């Protein structure tokens, strides 16, 4: 259902044009983009999401809170840890429990694994072919086999972290409210460290490689939103901040952000009240937290030509690479300081309560809120994934981007639009949820 089936309508005149792309290639899930052009002006852009939304929110009702990490891990095959992390922190916040020390560090470590996996998949297999002029990673591999092999091995380093700490690679089951079911021995992490040392070098190469790619001259004045922590690059904790003065606790999320239903999409569009569309994900995180990156990652970013704030979404491939490097570096730091905790989980006092959390999924902030009864059964759940938050910004990018390329042949214009969508690594299948792309020149 994902294969690109692009039908480009013939231009009926120089003034009106229709481009239709039925299925977005190389994005997670099914999506459609519709762009309407009249008199060489883009008059409408619709990023379409067709997946029946909110299934999992309904599915969670009546389930015991302890089941939530395992169920939400199945929302997305690419970022199950993000769903687990937002879920356990929200429920722990509801019950007034605080996981800290080595258990907290292990949660950062497993998130490092997921960032490495998810970002590497996108950088090497999905996004790089756009910049190097290949239809896909398979064609790219025929000319750049060693580069593709490096990507596969780098991703594997992330997989191994998730497999060790998560209990298994897909749909990890070892994460629980209060901590983990089982924690690793130092010797097990030492094995990971050996591969991560190689991975850190490979990530450094990845930053250099992506920085050498050709980027369109396209900068926008985005409203960035990300977590910010007093002294860490954010994974599981922090306040929600923006580059225009937002600075709130997570409990204020729903007072500041709202979701709007739009006719062309089953996904709800998120906006920041009084401000409108906002940008989440690696570029927002990086631009709001450059000073929290490790010295190695900061240096690599500077050497790659990135400034501490990046506003060119096409350069998100370099920013993702910097985050891969940071995740390798941070994972090695955590492993070096690891002492097995006395217990794999803390006791969590169950009572009727509600709580929320926001963590930094690979694609951006992932908000969860749960209300539970006195037995710990879920009364209601709210999940706001990053892709639905980025949807309006993607549409705005296309409105600005498409006019620069209206003279291109239809097929190439469609490809350029897909590339612009891929800047966001949209995860349509998990977000809210399948999406489709289509363009129209009238």
């Amino acid at each position, binding site marked *: *259902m*994902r*294969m690109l089936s692009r039908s480009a309508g013939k231009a009926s005149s120089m003034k009106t044009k229709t481009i239709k792309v039925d299925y977005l*290639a*190389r*994005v*997670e*899930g*099914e999506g459609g983009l519709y762009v309407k052009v009249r008199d060489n002006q883009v008059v409408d852009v619709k990023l379409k999401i067709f*997946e*029946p939304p909110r*299934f*999992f929110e309904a*599915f969670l009702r009546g389930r015991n809170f302890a089941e939530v990490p395992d169920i939400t891990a*199945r929302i997305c*095959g*690419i970022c199950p840890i993000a769903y687990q992390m937002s879920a356990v922190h929200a429920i722990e916040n509801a019950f007034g429990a605080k996981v800290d020390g080595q258990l907290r560090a292990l949660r950062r470590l497993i998130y490092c694994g997921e960032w490495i996996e998810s970002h590497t*998949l996108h950088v090497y*297999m*999905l996004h790089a072919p756009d910049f190097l002029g290949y239809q*896909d*990673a*398979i064609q790219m*591999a*025929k000319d750049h*086999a060693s580069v*593709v*092999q490096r990507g*596969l091995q780098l*991703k*594997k380093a992330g*997989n191994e972290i998730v497999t060790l700490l998560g209990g298994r*690679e*897909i*749909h990890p089951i070892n994460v629980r409210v209060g901590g983990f079911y089982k924690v690793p021995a130092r010797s097990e992490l030492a094995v990971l460290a050996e591969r991560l040392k190689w991975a850190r070098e490979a990530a450094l190469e990845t930053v250099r490689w992506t920085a050498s790619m050709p980027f369109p001259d396209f900068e926008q004045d985005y409203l960035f939103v990300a977590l910010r922590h007093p002294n860490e690059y954010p994974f599981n904790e922090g306040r929600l901040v923006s580059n225009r003065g937002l600075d709130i606790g997570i409990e204020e999320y729903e007072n500041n952000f709202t979701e709007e239903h739009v006719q062309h999409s089953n996904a709800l569009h998120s906006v920041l009240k009084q401000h409108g569309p906002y940008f989440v994900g690696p570029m927002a995180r990086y631009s709001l937290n450059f000073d929290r990156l490790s010295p190695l990652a900061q240096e690599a970013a500077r050497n790659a030509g990135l400034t501490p704030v990046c506003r060119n979404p096409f350069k998100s491939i370099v920013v993702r690479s910097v985050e891969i490097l940071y995740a390798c570096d941070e994972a090695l730091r955590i492993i070096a300081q690891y002492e097995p905790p006395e217990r794999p989980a803390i006791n969590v006092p169950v009572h009727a309560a509600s709580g929320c959390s926001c963590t930094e999924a690979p694609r951006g902030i992932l908000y969860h809120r749960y209300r539970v009864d006195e037995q710990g059964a879920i009364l209601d759940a709210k999940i706001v994934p990053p892709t639905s938050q980025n949807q309006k910004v993607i549409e705005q990018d296309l409105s600005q981007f498409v006019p620069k390329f209206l003279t291109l042949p239809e097929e190439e214009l469609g490809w350029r639009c897909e590339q612009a969508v891929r800047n966001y690594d949209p995860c349509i*299948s998990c977000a809210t949820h*399948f999406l489709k792309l289509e363009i129209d020149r009238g």
Partner: protein
Amino acid sequence: MSDVTQSAKVLVIGIGNAYRHDDAAGLMVARCLKEQTLSSGEVHEQAGEGTALMELWKGAERVVVVDAVQSGAVPGSIHHFNAGLHPLPAPIFRDSTHAFGLVEAIELSRALNQLPSNLVIYGIEGQNFDVGTGLSAAVLGAVNDLAERLRQEALGEKVG
């Protein structure tokens, strides 16, 4: 099943999403086989992410992948492909909601000369791919039939 030789241990990979009804067909075949003690093979469940599949079958000689498909055939039909001979008919594989799924994993493995020498794909025709749990009756029957065939033939386990 004739193209699965008996010379090496078989790696069986069941692919699917347990929350998309019949999309879970491959997973369910894997679970049927896991419930039995197998001396002649390994059984894995996967979500369908391509690079993970490549890592799993790297170096393996005999691989059987089971996945749900949607081709318009009668629900419960079992399709059979030899990946070593031909590319898969990509559009019928449901796991392709992954940007880099089974079809891409096979072709990238081929491009990198890492395709297992014997890679057989079974596609179970699904009926209902909506969100939700549980298999359609026809698909459930096909899952049981295919699991039994794989156990007897590909895995060479004794019956009874």
